[in-house]
């Protein structure tokens, strides 16, 4: 297959003199504190060993020492770029376990805010990825668009990054008219901007040559490592938690899953750009269907105690499948909170996928995986 042509097979470099290069914890291209120990033969990588743990903040341990309500700020901080999705998973698992019914208005607002958050997370990925590749300007255009989203969300939640907006049974407070009009305006504003990015960046011959054919990750490799999200959708597998295990009001909304079969960096890039367009579609539909009503369930117990058992809830976060598993023994503090994060699985395939690549290509591959290091270390 033509994609294999750009690598040297591993056995061709055996016996050659190699040196170890540290892509250290502080590095502009690793998007956080990740250390990658590269064993290199000249320009080619023979082995890339990621060393994570530099930002381990013990969120799962904190889950064992906090009540359910007290744990609410934590999911936002695991992956701060798509904080809404992570909070959604946690409140979702508690609601599922305690049988709390969320009113439809709250569900629709959750979907709208989650999709806005997905767009803002993809805009950060877009800017940072292009920065790694040497194009400095699209970062600032993306951040300009992101400012609009952040201003919208700041208007209803009061925060710009770590929202802590969902509560068990609904939302912290209701959305106002300004948010609804503002979001409608944003959708009309953003569509031409996506076209602009297509012309400025996606169609650019330099970028295409930089990404096409680089960093092939087959669907079989994704399955072995448990990679999810745009990584697996760029390898031709149409796996999206919103379609496979639907939650919230996604079954009532009409949207397509972005899938590209080429398996290279360009496919993953195109998946994310298409996901932004689909998110705009979802937001439009949800705004049209937004019902009136309460924004939080009527009878939510002040102190939440889940019946003993094992509960699970998965969402499609910006980076892939994020799932929370809560094991409860009947007390107000959970026995175990397990956080299944997408970046961890996506990182583990970097070692095998970067075999024999040249360093700039390996960095392009890492950028296309869209890793957020606090998400890996939790």
């Amino acid at each position, binding site marked *: 297959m033509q994609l294999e042509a750009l690598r040297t097979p591993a056995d061709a470099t055996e016996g050659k003199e190699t040196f170890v290069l540290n892509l250290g914890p502080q590095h502009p291209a690793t998007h956080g504190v990740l250390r990658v120990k590269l064993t290199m033969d000249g320009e080619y990588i023979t082995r890339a060993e990621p060393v994570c743990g530099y930002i381990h903040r013990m969120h799962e341990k904190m889950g064992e020492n*906090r009540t359910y*309500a*007290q*744990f*609410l*700020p*934590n999911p936002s*901080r695991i992956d701060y770029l798509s904080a809404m999705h992570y909070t959604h998973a946690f409140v979702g698992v508690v609601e599922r376990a305690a049988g709390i019914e969320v009113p439809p208005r709250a569900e629709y607002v959750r979907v709208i805010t989650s999709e806005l958050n997905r767009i803002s997370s993809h805009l950060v990925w877009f800017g940072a990825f292009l920065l790694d590749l040497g194009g400095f*300007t699209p970062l600032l*255009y993306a951040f*300009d668009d992101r*400012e609009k989203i952040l*201003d919208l969300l*700041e*208007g*209803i*939640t*009061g*925060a710009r990054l*770590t929202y*802590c907006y969902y*509560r068990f049974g609904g939302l*912290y*407070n209701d959305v106002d008219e300004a948010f609804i009009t503002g979001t409608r305006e944003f959708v009309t504003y953003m569509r031409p901007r996506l076209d*602009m990015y297509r*012309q*400025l*960046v996606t*169609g*650019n*011959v*330099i970028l295409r040559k930089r990404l096409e054919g680089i960093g092939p990750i087959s669907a079989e490799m994704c399955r072995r490592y448990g990679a999810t999200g745009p990584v697996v959708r760029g390898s031709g597998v149409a796996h999206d938690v919103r379609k496979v295990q639907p939650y919230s009001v996604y079954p009532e909304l009409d949207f397509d899953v972005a899938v590209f079969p080429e398996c290279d960096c360009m496919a993953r890039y195109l998946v994310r750009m298409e996901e932004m367009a689909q998110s705009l579609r979802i937001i439009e539909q949800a705004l049209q269907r937004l019902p009136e009503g309460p924004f939080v369930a009527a009878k939510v117990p*002040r102190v939440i105690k889940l019946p003993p058992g094992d509960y699970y809830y998965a969402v499609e976060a910006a980076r892939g499948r994020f799932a929370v598993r809560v094991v409860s023994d009947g007390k107000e503090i959970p026995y175990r909170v397990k956080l299944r994060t997408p970046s961890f699985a996506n990182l583990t395939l970097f070692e095998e996928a970067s075999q024999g690549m040249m360093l700039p290509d390996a960095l392009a591959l890492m950028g296309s995986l869209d890793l957020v290091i606090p998400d890996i270390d939790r």
Partner: protein
Amino acid sequence: MKRALLELLSGFGSLLTGMRITLQQFFKPPVTVHYPHESLKMPARYRGHILLVRDPATGKSVCIACKSCEKACPSDCIVVEGIKREGDKRKSVTDFKLDFTRCSLCGSCVEVCPVDALEFSKAYNLASTSKEAFYQIDLVKRVEARDP
């Protein structure tokens, strides 16, 4: 051969399109709000550190020192003390200290308060030369100094 030539021309065309777009952006005004010469107005629901709400009638806070906020806080930021004065039906607060170095602005305290005695402030530039601005902020002293 012909395909290669067409590819070359379309590739070059994509470069020119990119340059046209950046030139269009060149002539648009800067987006930056030039802080500190200009600043933005914080939205109504902005989450600054919490403050006690001032009751315009009495000039003091309405807090009843029930300690719900202290229990609800995930980060142990709040210490509340109160006494029941003679002739009052409920306790009133004597001491309310906020440790802002740990606060994550989750809003649990504001939400759980039964008398709505807490609200978020709009303070966002919190540079200070003294520790009291962040560690053990005395909210009772602040509420009496607030405008109604």
